[in-house]
């Protein structure tokens, strides 16, 4: 069965510092991979997605992620964070051609950006 692991439940960084959020997946083939962000009391917004091709994908708000098949990872990065980046970040995968396009989510990483 597929799974997503986000090993860091909470991350605290200072404004202007770089940010990396880790995501490891378990799946027998190459899945579709996503990062979503959830701001307080809001729904999820798509940051970026990976289907195939260039392993580095650019997303909104200067986020990028790198897919590594050898490491089964899809880490999210941002060079310089702003206080408004404080949110919960979810990594998710779906299986190509799966019924219902079911997304399997990690538990999320709560990011706090200190001014």
């Amino acid at each position, binding site marked *: 069965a597929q799974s997503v692991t986000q090993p860091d439940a909470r991350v605290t960084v200072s404004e202007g510092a770089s940010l990396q959020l880790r995501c490891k997946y378990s799946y027998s083939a190459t899945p579709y991979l996503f990062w979503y962000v959830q701001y307080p009391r809001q*729904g999820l917004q*798509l940051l970026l997605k990976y289907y195939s091709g260039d392993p580095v994908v650019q997303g909104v708000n200067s986020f990028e992620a790198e897919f590594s098949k050898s490491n089964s990872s899809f880490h999210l990065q941002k060079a310089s964070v702003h206080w408004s980046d404080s949110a919960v970040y979810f990594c998710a995968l779906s299986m190509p051609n799966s019924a219902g396009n079911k997304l399997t*989510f990690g538990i999320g990483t709560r990011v706090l950006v200190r001014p």
Partner: protein
Amino acid sequence: AQTIHQWPVAEIKAVGSPLSLGCTIKGKSSPNLYWYWQATGGTLQQLFYSITVGQVESVVQLNLSASRPKDDQFILSTEKLLLSHSGFYLCAWSGGGAGAETLYFGSGTRLTVL
């Protein structure tokens, strides 16, 4: 542009009472529609999906039901709420064919069952 609207924004209900949550998608014909549930402080689980009017597939059994009465509308309901139903309910849509895997979520409904 496509928009997704969920209602209500929040509900406080008693155990044993009925529930109906709704979601409407505008600007996209024949979308795939989904219901997800997020327990407080937890991750998200897919509950239902629908690829066409009148057809709904259940993914997780939580004593809830879903219906798609119109192409742009998805309803989540139950006749008797349980304490375990508390949480955040998110409706989502995706297109058909290529790119169907990318889900776009609504702003959610926060449900508190007392």
